[in-house]
């Protein structure tokens, strides 16, 4: 069959320079089916990925209201961006919300995964139940959350009242807003991460635990010296994923505190600021400049993540391998 022949040729390439030009051209044509086979991705990426990316760079150098002629402004948008307090604040806000949501979420997710991993009844039911928030509409959830955190009649304030704490105006207080947004992110992603951790836990071989038991390790020692180190790759995956999601926080803020980001811009994340400038204020040039600012922040985080993963594993679990 032709396919096998071709594969053989690929496996044993010869230097094309040694062939006459016509043979080299024929050889190039022989690869055409493979290029064709992988082309859909590249064609789609060129249209929907690469083109918009480079077009946004072009836009960032212009002033454009979305319809009329584009006006060349050079680097003016970037000059504004780097002196724009709101943009710097939005970076800080994004990072604060990311930390406030990721750390509790990871701890909770591990605890839930441990629970789901132990032999309990209705395991499947719990797994589905914890995953449901992840596929629930954020806008619907935001209605529930704005009711929970409502200052006037929120459930949370009612519960605080039961233990004698004065009501807190969650959604008008800058830290309250950050807590509410983080709570929503935690609620939405804790189940997803618990399922990932559960898969990681189930991949840890049982004999490791047996060895730990033989060595006389208690449940805590086993968790910190066996489970956690072996869960490290999964943990890293989850942190990287949450960093990707965390840098793009948008919907939760928008639905809870609106396009302007609420009092003191407490909920104004980078992406929300970008959306506001480009799509609400019709300033597509400046919006594009903000998106390149976000890109730089993401690059910095990608490098940090990469360094974390590349780090040689100095702490190979003792007594396990």
């Amino acid at each position, binding site marked *: 069959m032709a396919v096998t022949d071709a594969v053989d040729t690929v496996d044993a390439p010869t230097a094309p320079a040694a062939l006459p030009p016509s043979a080299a051209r024929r050889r190039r044509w022989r690869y055409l089916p493979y290029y064709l086979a992988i082309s859909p991705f590249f064609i789609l990426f060129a249209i929907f990925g690469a083109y918009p990316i480079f077009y946004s760079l072009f836009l960032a150098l212009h002033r454009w209201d979305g319809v009329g002629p584009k006006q060349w402004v050079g680097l003016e948008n970037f000059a504004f961006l780097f002196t724009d307090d709101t943009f710097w604040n939005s970076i800080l806000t994004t990072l604060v919300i990311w930390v406030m949501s990721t750390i509790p979420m990871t701890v909770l997710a591990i605890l839930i995964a441990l629970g789901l991993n132990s032999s309990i009844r209705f395991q499947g039911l719990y797994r589905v139940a914890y995953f449901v928030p992840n596929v629930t509409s954020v806008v619907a959830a935001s209605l529930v959350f704005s009711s929970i955190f409502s200052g*006037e009649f929120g459930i949370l304030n009612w519960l605080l009242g039961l233990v004698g704490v004065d009501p807190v*105006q969650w959604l008008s207080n800058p830290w309250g807003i950050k807590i509410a947004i983080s709570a929503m992110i935690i609620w939405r992603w804790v189940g997803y991460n618990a399922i990932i951790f559960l898969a990681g836990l189930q991949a840890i071989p049982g004999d490791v635990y047996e060895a730990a038991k033989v060595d006389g390790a208690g449940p805590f020692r086993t968790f910190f010296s066996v489970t956690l180190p072996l869960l490290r790759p999964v943990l890293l995956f989850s942190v990287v994923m949450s960093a990707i999601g965390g840098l793009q926080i948008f919907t939760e803020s928008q639905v809870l505190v609106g396009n302007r980001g609420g009092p003191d811009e407490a909920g104004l994340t980078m992406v929300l600021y970008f959306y506001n400038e480009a799509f609400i204020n*019709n300033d597509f040039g400046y919006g594009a400049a903000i998106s390149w600012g976000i890109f730089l922040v993401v690059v910095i985080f990608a490098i940090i993540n990469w360094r974390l993963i590349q780090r040689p594993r100095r702490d190979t679990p003792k007594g396990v391998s």
Partner: protein
Amino acid sequence: MTLTRRTFLAAAGGAAGLATLGTAGCASPTTANPGALTLWYSKDGLSTNVVDDAIGRFADDKFRVSIIGDGLKHRLLAAMSGNAYVPDIAMLGDDIASYFQDSDQFVDLNTLGAADVKDEYLPWKWQAGTSPSGFMMGFPIDIGPSALYYRHDLFKQAGFPSEPDDVATVVSTWDAYFEFGVELQKALPGRYLITDTKTVFTYSMAQLPQKYFDRQDSYIGDGPHVREAWDRALDAYRRGLTAGYAGSQNPGDSVDRHAAWNTGKELSFVNASWITGELKQSAPGTAGKWRVCRSPGGAGNQGGSFLSITKNCPRPQAAFDIIAWLLSPENQARTFLDAGLFPSSPSAFTDPRLLEPEPFFGGQVTMNVFGKSASDVKPAYFSPYDIAISDTYTDELTNVELVGKDPGQAWNDARRTVTRLLQRKGVI
């Protein structure tokens, strides 16, 4: 037919070939439905009954409609910048001024005979749809005249003036309203007469004949009138009159404000007429207890929309006839009854169907209050940057009110942000 690899590849190849032929054969049409006249309007932006009648009436013109749930503006901008699938008739919001610099995308309605019906509509609204150079872009749909909504029962219970005319007399100016509020709060502690500082600032500005730019597009936002509105908002805050609900920055989304309506914590508020529907829906238990009267400081307008005809529309005259029919004074009255959109045609204010006593307002004929307010609005030029500027000031007021920011600092920050914004846009 069984699906083998060969048949699948043949079918896929055939489909791809056809698709290529199809795109090569005809480019994307410039209008949304070639041959037809298409109207894009946002949900609840017109009365569906009136629109349905128009579809029947203008069947010969192939009149079609699309209701755009969210983001009509984004879709319109995308269609216009791509010059494809542009609706023939498009609804524009109260940010119509941001389209003035792109008037080449639209048809000047004055060239289609709009001037003939000009007298049937409120002059200030007509002017708002016309660019400073006289290009008429938008035909008036609805408006948002402001009034003071207040709790008749609670005013009365506290022994204060409670009938609309009496209240209007007592609170004729903002200062008088604040004085009244301080006294009323002594009688009814823990309740509020003003939603937030944003309300005071926004409606104070709405009452003025000039805003941030004059019609020659020169910036006048550094004049004393902005500072006056700002100081007034701070005054209300310092006197403890504002409730400052979270989320009231997003009109319609504040669950706290809805709760305050239900519990009677919000004794009164200044708002445009479009809040009535939300008030009825969110606080049905307070039916009969509300009244409206002239707003402190006088008439003002917030919000309102327009219909426009885009440049590629093949039959602009037919499109204009549809618009003129949809928005005729009689149909505006019907639209108000169906969808609560306040008419921009004064003759609708005296339509007997709109002068029925309303049980929710204790039998008051609210049209008398809102109609008067609508007629008294001063014409003002609304620039493309007004919404962004106003949002900047109200954001800083909110920072003072809810976060405790120093007012002097907030004012300086607002001024600085506005200046930077206008510099970035190349206006100053």
